[in-house]
């Protein structure tokens, strides 16, 4: 009796990008929340403006950025990296470092379901 093999590759390919994209986006949102928490922990003046301006932006398929600031709140990078008059207060990169493994786990979890 002949064996019949059915390929699921087309279906997997269709599911792959949205699943990974959703996992990466979820990871980016966790990093954004951590960055906001780091600001609060530092008790920084005007964090009530910068905190809400930390957001996730889609760059490409399954590629997201965590951005600290917007058109009105422009000083996120000055706080993160310091100025000639103020020492750095890193809140964004530590959030990434703390949760980079989380992003990997989320993507692994998304792939396991295929």
């Amino acid at each position: 009796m002949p064996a019949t093999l059915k390929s699921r590759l087309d279906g997997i390919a269709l599911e792959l990008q949205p699943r990974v994209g959703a996992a990466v986006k979820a990871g980016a949102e966790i990093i954004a929340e951590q960055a906001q928490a780091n600001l609060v922990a530092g008790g920084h003046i005007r964090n009530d403006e910068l905190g809400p301006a930390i957001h996730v932006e889609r760059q490409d398929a399954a590629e997201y950025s965590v951005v600290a600031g917007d058109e009105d709140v422009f000083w996120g990078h000055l706080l993160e990296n310091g100025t000639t008059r103020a020492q750095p207060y890193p809140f964004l990169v530590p959030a990434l470092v703390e949760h980079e493994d989380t992003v990997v786990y989320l993507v692994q979890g998304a792939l396991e379901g295929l």
Partner: protein
Amino acid sequence: MSVNARLGLWSKLANTPAITSKLAAAPSGFEKAIYHEQAPTGSAFPYIVFSKVAGTKVRAMQTPEAFKRETWMVKAVDRGTSSKLAEEIAEAVDAALGGGMLTITGKTVADINHVGDIDYPETSGDQQYRHVGANYRLTLT
């Protein structure tokens, strides 16, 4: 361990002529124009500021601190409308650290990775400043 990492980084930067030859003279009480976290008031430009950004301990093989990763920012700061000199200093720092030769007392530096550039202007009154450098991740065992 951050103390030794800080001292090791400072020593590496301060003993690299390609870097120090481009820096301003340090103020009284400082050996080089290479400062931890913030330059003292009145420092001449250009100078280097370096500081710890993040650190994590990694458990492996049932060892609580099998290795440690520390992210450090190293940036050149110059005053003026051109980034050229700050960029040259940042490139010299990158070359020095890119060689992977860094001595940290009590630890072995397994790797040094350039993990991201830093490049931004700062305006204060009628003055412009240029901050150019990078974040480096040290893997210590």
